[in-house]
Each structure stands twice: as structure tokens, then as C-alpha cells.
């Protein structure tokens, strides 16, 4: 897992306590709104996202930048790809 800090996101989505698979649905929904190169931050407490979000990025041509862990939830950073 890649750990990052001080990433400056363009958009933030808080889905803490929202059930699986909301992390993938919100991710897809939010990425449609972004321009290539922009960064999305997703806050979630769902640990299944640790596998799902990097996998989703690999499949969809978006760049998974890494996570920032807080005591209560994870922050995922995804940069929108060009395709």
C-alpha cells in the first residue's frame, strides 16, 4: 500500500459509515465530474476499499496516488486519468 500525506485534492467525498459498495459507486460518480489530472479524495472507514479502490483505478485507467490513514478512517487519493 502506498502512503501519502499533504496531497491537495480538488474534490473531497465523505462516505464514512456508508456501507459497501458505496465506496465504488461514489468513486465512479465523482470521477465522472473531474477533469483529467484532477485529484479526488475519498474518506471511508471500509477496509475492503484498500483492495477495491486500487483495483478499480487499475481497471479504469485512473492513477491511485495512495492513502493517508487517520485513527477513524482512510483517505484515498485518486488522480483522474486521460482516457
Amino acid at each position, binding site marked *: 500500500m502506498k502512503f501519502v500525506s499533504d496531497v491537495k485534492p480538488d474534490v473531497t467525498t*465523505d462516505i464514512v*459509515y456508508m*456501507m459497501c459498495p458505496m465506496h465504488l459507486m461514489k468513486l465512479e460518480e465523482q470521477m465522472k465530474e473531474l477533469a483529467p489530472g484532477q485529484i479526488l479524495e475519498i474518506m471511508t472507514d471500509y477496509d475492503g476499499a484498500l483492495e477495491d479502490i486500487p483495483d478499480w483505478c487499475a481497471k479504469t485507467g485512473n492513477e491511485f496516488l495512495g492513502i493517508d490513514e487517520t485513527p477513524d478512517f482512510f483517505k484515498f487519493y485518486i488522480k483522474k486519468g486521460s482516457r
Partner: protein
Amino acid sequence: MKKCYFDHVATNPLHPDVLDAMMPYFREEFGNPLSVYEYGMKAKNAVETAREQVAGLVNAKPAEIIFTANGAEANNFALRGIALARQNEGKHILVSRMEHHSILNSARFLEKSGFTVTYLPVDRQGYVDPDTVKKMITKETTLISVIHASSEVGTIEPLKEIVKVAKEHNISVHTDAVATTGNIPVDVLDLGVDLLSMAAHQFYGPKGAGALYVKQGTRIVPLIYGGIQESGRRAGTENVPAIVGMGKAALLAKDELGSRMEYLRPMRDRLIDTMAGVERVYLTGDRNNRLPGHASFCVEYIEGEAMLLLLAAKGIFSASGSACSSKALKSSPVLLSMGIPTGLAQGSIVFSLGMGNTTEDMDYLVSEFPAVIKRLREISPFSQGWGDNQEGGTCTVKK
């Protein structure tokens, strides 16, 4: 025999237009909103339309409305969901003594789970004092829950002032607005609350649909785990017909709110004024700042159950305490918390009027109710007094 229903805080009859709106979703439009084909999409659209309609009734955004099965579920969800979501910031919550069992019992559950709950006292009219709230806040407090108006005494609480105090300390505020939503103006932005519970059957909608308003940006732990319904915050296949009915009922309530209140108030006032003329009958709750169709009394020397039964024999249907307290034959904790003595609290009776009630119904009630009191006092063993020096003079209307 004439039949007059005066128990609208227990439930309302369904508005005919609401039933018409619901019917297709029992029959041809039976799809699951999560299905991706036509049936599912139609059901999904119906749920989302209802969400807009319910949001419109309380001045919320559609995404801030989470459908539940009823008001009790919304209350459980709010109290447990926020207490758990914020437990790392503190484990203290404030709950008023006017609350419904769905709040009080959720608070007890939280106490057993390691939270500290402080129960806010109320005055003799049932008001929670914002200054008392201020004094009871600690560094650990994360949530305050105060009912908008109790269905037992009808007093409308000073929520805006309580919210003001809470916001100075970054505390979430929930209100149980089951008795008020659709019956008086309820505006989440004006009140400033973070969470608000409502139930469709309290404003001529169906049973089986309720909702919790959750202010945008509020984190809440789900009560029911499963699928992605309600944005992953309340799992379970939606009760589409009931939700559609709730939406339609919300639309009607918004349009007709003013006229409904104007219709009910004079009938309520007539009942209160009539009963003020009956010996040792005390109004409970505030005389004016109360639900428009709500009149509640404590009648000295008589048990509420006896009144209910005699009135029911005359085709007059009312309640004693809350709907569940009536069955449990318990003194109402709400009335006791207002300082009403146990004996007098046993003589509690609540008349809650609705749009189906007529002037003729009120004529019948104001003539029969005093007669029932007179008849029961003739046979009451307490008619010469309680024998334990209990006084009934703690209520708001004294003879």
C-alpha cells in the same frame, strides 16, 4: 352509534389521494428500485420523487432525507447513529424527559454500552429550559435530543434556542418531530437541527414509512446493515408503496398546512375552554403554544383507562398517556417528569383532533366527556381525595 375518532396522535386515517397514489405500486409497478430494468427504474423514480416531496415539507435537500420504516426507527437511528459516530470525541449525550420511548430506550441502550446520558428536566408545562441545557453540557457531550412536541402534552419546545446553545459547543442536535411534521410548520434550516425524525401516518400518510433528515455532511453509523439503499445508510428493500404515500401526504400537508391548522385550533380551544369549567380537571402542557389539534388533561380521582372505556362505549375514541403507555397501564413518565403527582397522572386523557372531525363531533364530545367524569367520580373510591395528601395543583389550569 356515533363514532368520533379523537386519537390522531396514535395514527391518522389515510388521505384518499394518498391511497390513490400508492395503489399502482402494489399492483403493476411492483419493481425493486435497485433493479436496472424498466420495473426497477420506475420504482426508483417513484422513491426519488417521494424524497423530493418529503424534503420539500421540511425545507431540506432531497439527499438529506433517509427513508425508514417509521418514526421509532428514525429515532433509534439518530440517537445510536450519532452517538456511535462521534464516540471518539466524547461519550455523553443529553436527552429530555419528554421523549418518546424510542428515544428513552435507545438512550438506555447507550448507557449500557458505556455512554453517559443526562436526562434534561422539564417544567410544569413540559418545557426544556435552554439555560439548563447549557449547564448540563460537558466537554464530552456530542448529542442533544429534544422532542419538537410531545404527543402526550402537545407543548412545542424552544428548539431554536436549544440549537443555539448546542452550536456554541459543536454538539449535534436531533429532534423527534413525529408529532409536528405535517401538522405545524417544520423547517430544518430555521430550527437549525442536524437530525429530525418524522412519520408518514402522522400526516394522513400510510404506516410503514418514516424518515430521518440528516444534515448534509453529518456522519451517522447505520442502524441496519446490508445493501446500498438510501446511499448505504439504511439497508433493506424499500417499502415503495408506503414511501410513495409518504411523499404524496407530504405534498398535501405542505399545501394545506395553514388551512388544517386554522380548522383544528378553534375545535381544540373549544374543548379546552369547556373543560376549564369542570371541577378538578387540569390541562397539561402549554395553553397556546401547543399542537393545533391537541388537548390533554389530567382528571382528578379517576383512572384514564376508565375514562377511555366509558368514552369508547359512547363511540368516542381517545388516549391516556402515549399510545403504548395506554396498553401498559403505567403512569406516564412524561407527566411525572412535569411534576404531576402519580395519582393525578393516572387520570391522564388526550384528545387529538384531525381533519375528519366536525363541529358535530365536538358538540358530542363536550356534552359526553363531563358526563363520563361525573359518572366515574360517583363510583370512584378516591372521590373524597387521595388520602395521601397528594394535590393536583401542579398543572397549568387550576379551578
